[in-house]
């Protein structure tokens, strides 16, 4: 593994077994189905997809909250599946949950919430702990610090609660922060503040960041690279600017076309939306999982084989048969909607 790779995920599958009446096996929900990627040190990566595409399961599997069915996660040169490595891994990774109020214990004040990870990870010196807590609160701008230390979560606004969650994720000086929809529960006017805070931490300390979101429009401002997930798989990965200017996968194209910017012209036209619904992860479609909805569907190819990754331009990978250069039809890209 090259030295600048912090996290390496290889062929990761997380399947959940579905049973009826507790013992009749119905099948597996393939929430994460064959994901491979490397995350570099100091890189901010966004994982974008609609609900049910497996993006949160991916985050939780990396965090060790779900056991992978198959595959390997290597962090800083060590496999993290074993119990003792998991403990070590958890002290080097921070987690920012979607719902800040649900993520904070209601009976603990700010000081105790932030102290707990330090105690668990063996910081015995009380003064050192307090210094660290003060430092991290300044960092997330919960100031004046003395006002906030004795407060309980319900005494904070939504934005402040989320800043506290970020502070808790950052308090052990992690190398990686995984933020799962960190702003979807917050008001528009504070979203940017939280995202800038995460971005600031990431840049100042050279952390890696995995930002899970359904909102492509925030991605360009806060990340370098983006993965698009659909049906448990990564279907396109590219630097953010490339993806936004030149989306290759028909699904990514549809997704971008469906997102409005505030513009009065929007009211005068209809949007192109692919028909149908996201696929069932219990019985996923054969071949490419997007083929039943795809405007560029090629019978005999797309519904038979799962597309491999093609690289139409450097660093831009797409899992779509249109970009298979050994096929003649692939010569031209589909028209952008």
């Amino acid at each position, binding site marked *: 593994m090259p030295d600048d790779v912090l996290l390496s995920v290889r062929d990761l599958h997380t399947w959940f077994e579905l049973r009826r009446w507790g013992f009749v096996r119905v099948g597996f929900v393939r929430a994460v189905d064959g994901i491979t990627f490397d995350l570099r040190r100091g890189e901010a990566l966004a994982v974008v997809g609609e609900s049910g595409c497996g993006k949160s399961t991916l985050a939780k599997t990396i965090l060790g909250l779900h056991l992978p069915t198959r595959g390997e996660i290597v962090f800083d040169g060590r496999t993290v599946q074993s119990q003792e490595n998991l403990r070590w891994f958890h002290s080097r990774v921070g987690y920012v949950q979607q719902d800040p109020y649900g993520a904070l214990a209601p009976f603990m004040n700010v000081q105790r919430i932030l102290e707990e990870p330090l105690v668990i990870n063996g910081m015995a010196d009380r003064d050192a702990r307090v210094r660290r807590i003060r430092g991290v609160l300044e960092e997330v701008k919960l100031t004046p610090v003395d006002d906030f230390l004795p407060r309980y979560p319900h005494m904070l606004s939504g934005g402040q609660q989320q800043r506290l969650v970020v502070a808790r994720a950052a308090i052990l000086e992690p190398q990686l922060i995984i933020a799962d929809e960190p702003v979807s529960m917050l008001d*528009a006017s*504070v979203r*940017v503040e939280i995202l800038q805070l995460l971005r600031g931490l990431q840049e100042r300390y050279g952390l890696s960041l995995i930002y899970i979101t359904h909102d492509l*429009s925030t991605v360009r401002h806060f990340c370098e690279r983006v993965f698009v997930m659909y049906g448990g798989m990564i279907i396109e990965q590219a630097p953010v600017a490339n993806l936004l200017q030149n989306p290759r996968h028909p699904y990514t194209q549809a997704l971008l076309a*469906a997102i*409005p910017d*505030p513009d009065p012209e929007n*009211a005068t036209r209809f*949007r192109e*939306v692919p028909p149908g619904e996201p696929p069932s992860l219990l019985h996923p479609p054969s071949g490419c999982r997007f083929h039943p909805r795809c405007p560029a569907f090629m019978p005999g190819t797309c519904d038979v084989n799962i597309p491999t990754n093609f690289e139409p331009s450097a660093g831009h990978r797409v899992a779509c048969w249109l970009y298979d250069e050994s096929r003649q039809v692939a010569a031209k890209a589909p028209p952008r909607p």
Partner: protein
Amino acid sequence: MTANGLFSIDDLRLYFRTRKGPVQAVDGVSLTLPRGRTVVIVGESGCGKSSLARAILRLLPRNVARYSGSVRLNGLDVMTLPEEQFRQQVRWIRLAWVPQGAMNSLNPVIRIGDQVAEPLLAHRRTESLAAARRSAEEVFHRVGVPVDFLDRYPFELSGGMRQRAALAMALITVPDVVILDEPTSALDVLTQANIMNVLKAIKRETQTSFILITHDIATSSELADDAAVMYAGQMVEMSHADQFYREPLHPYSRALMASVPTLREEKRLGFISGQPPSLIDPPKGCRFADRCPARFHKCSEEPPLFKAQDRLVKCWLYA
């Protein structure tokens, strides 16, 4: 914003009684809505936009401290009607509502079709089940749900389909005005675009007026003819959509617009520091003054709604 609108509200106030004092959830909101147009009401959580919807429909909780103003529909002040008459003649007949999270509030043990047809029977628009069923089929067709879904249960439908069914339930009585409270906020991007397409089509084909309440500025532009911004219980700006989305006037609207990340356009994102004031005993002057970058000495007095060309702004900068 013509004066002889189909629907208008004037100085509407709704205060709630709490132990700490009255909460001024809706504080003197006025609005005019011509037939066939859509007004969008944007605001952040706690600004009173959902309370405004409840105040219009007179769906009030028990702890109301003050409920005043007027709601006019075709010139008739429906606020003065007795409750029973309001229920029989106005609510859901002429003023319908798609509440927030409606798609998750469908009764799980009743078939979709029966639920959608229920307003017709409950408000005595028809006595015949067959006629109600026919109307349900028509309205399902209009919102783009296959007719055979009428016999399904809510759990058999996806989120987008359930939201369409909730919309169908509001449209089935052919109301004059439909209030949509966050109709797409829990939905995925593609589903959201789909629902917006349905609403646009309905808007083009019928004379229904919509009041769209949302926190999502980008999505609100999909439907807006006029846009209004609420802050701390008050309406702070009211403009035509094409002016509003290009150049909002009130400092709060401007800051809000600057915080919306855009996909196609490069811009510096901003945020609004601080928090909205408590609606229990709010500040005397402009309620945004504490967070406003443009505040000056005048702001300690409450600004009236100033006219700037044909737009209304509650800010001393436009005096």
